[in-house]
């Protein structure tokens, strides 16, 4: 059997002394007449205890009996088993013999109201913005489609104007298919090619600068295609010739 650690023994000893003191104090003040346990039951348990002890109980039993013995005279009623025990010591588990699971507590908040509240406000603001903007600015509706009249310039939707801009520099297969296709594939493969595990900005200077250059490249192309291209898709200045752009 495992040896009982010293600090536990010490603690038990201290507790025993304390209860003994308490019992002495209470018996001195109020006396045994205060006990709510009938006398004949008290006597029976005392007899059982002395019997068990004389019969040669294990060391633990004696200790337990000693613990129990103190409050009997006092005001605390304690039911004891036939051996005078109030509990049995099954085993003592040493600290550290069990695997300690230290799940670091994560700082969490309730989704309602903390997140849903924010989302609700954001949705309201978005709706309000869209509503007011739609109230003030009308969507374009030009003349009905006419196959015989090509507008000059004819432009793609704004998000494809970067591609249309490339079209002025490259063969249509390169500008319209190869480059955007490559861009998409590279974008999809980003998490598998960037094996840097850190997500701290200071550790990712190279890739963030690559991405920024890439995004700026498209943004500049879209802006040029939108505002700096006039009739014949020739370069113009919007402040000189006006804007040839419909959303």
């Amino acid at each position, binding site marked *: 059997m495992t040896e009982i650690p010293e600090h536990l023994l010490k603690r038990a000893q201290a507790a025993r002394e304390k209860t003994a003191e308490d019992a002495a104090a209470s018996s001195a003040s109020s006396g045994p007449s205060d006990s709510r346990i009938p006398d004949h039951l008290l006597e029976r348990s005392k007899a059982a205890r002395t019997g068990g002890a004389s019969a040669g109980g294990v060391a633990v039993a004696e200790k337990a009996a000693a613990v129990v013995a103190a409050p009997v005279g006092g005001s605390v009623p304690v039911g004891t088993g036939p051996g005078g025990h109030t509990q049995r010591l099954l085993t003592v588990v040493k600290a550290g013999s069990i695997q300690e699971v230290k799940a670091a507590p994560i*700082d*969490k908040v309730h*989704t309602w109201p903390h997140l849903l509240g924010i989302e609700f406000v954001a949705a309201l603001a978005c709706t309000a913005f869209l509503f007011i903007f739609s109230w003030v600015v009308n969507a374009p509706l030009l003349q009905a*489609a006419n*196959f015989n009249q090509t*507008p000059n310039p004819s432009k793609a939707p704004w998000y494809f104007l970067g591609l249309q801009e490339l079209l002025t520099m490259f063969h249509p*297969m390169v500008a319209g298919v190869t480059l955007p296709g490559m861009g998409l594939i590279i974008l999809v493969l980003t998490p598998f090619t960037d094996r840097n595990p850190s997500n701290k900005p200071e550790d990712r200077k190279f890739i963030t600068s690559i*991405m920024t250059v890439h995004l700026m490249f498209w943004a500049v192309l879209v802006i040029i295609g939108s505002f700096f291209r006039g009739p014949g898709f020739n370069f113009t200045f919007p402040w000189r010739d006006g804007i040839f752009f419909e959303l």
Partner: protein
Amino acid sequence: MAKTIDDQPTPTLKDRAAKIGTQVQGSQAWSSIFRPGSIFRKGYTDSPRNRSYVIMNSVLYHLHPVKVKRHAVKVSYTLCLGGLSFFLFILLTVTGIFLMFFYRPTTANAWQDIQTLQTSVTFGLLVRNMHRWGAHLMVLSTFLHMARVFYHGAYKAPREFNWVIGVVLLTLTLLLSFTGYLLPWDQLALWAVAVGTNMMGYTPIMGSQVRFVLLGGTEIGAETLLRWYVLHVLLLPFVIVIFMAIHFWRVRKDGGISGPL
């Protein structure tokens, strides 16, 4: 006997309203729709248990867990861009359904229907404006969401797969916007789409076939309009909803949103 009846005061309008309110809120239908913890449920008190119920017993449970990391509710981190993209999709669905009541995808009617919608239908112009500007806004917010995710390194393990789904969603958003661009059937729509589809014709090997399938012919025409209408209102929304469901599901499976940095 009449006196005892008269002892009961005649119920005021307020009392009756309160009684009806109690009956409605106590009904089975009400308690089936608004589960325990709902703010519309009778007797909501602000307790951790009820806060949990608000999420657990609602359809939102598929989107949000009961609790999220404290850092995840910081607006300065996400800028709400992903959520707003989703919200704009909902707005576009609602306004789009409204527009469908007044629109016929034929070359003879399409432009005239939009014209009539703008001039003769109550709120027609407003709803069409909202649909158009909302669509542009959704392209923008989806794009910015992608940039935000990139700069936070949020595509890294374990979120690689969700990034791939996100790129698919961005592409689908662009396609949804582009297919919708043709539907007003005005000069802007026709020639913008002509420019776009001419480029697709240069796809290597099967360029002309790709173009033929997309246009429903060799040139843009009535078949193109019908085809893009079906793509715009049915097929692409259907596909994007599936991918969105996977996207949101993966967010939770990967342990909530990324960060903090």
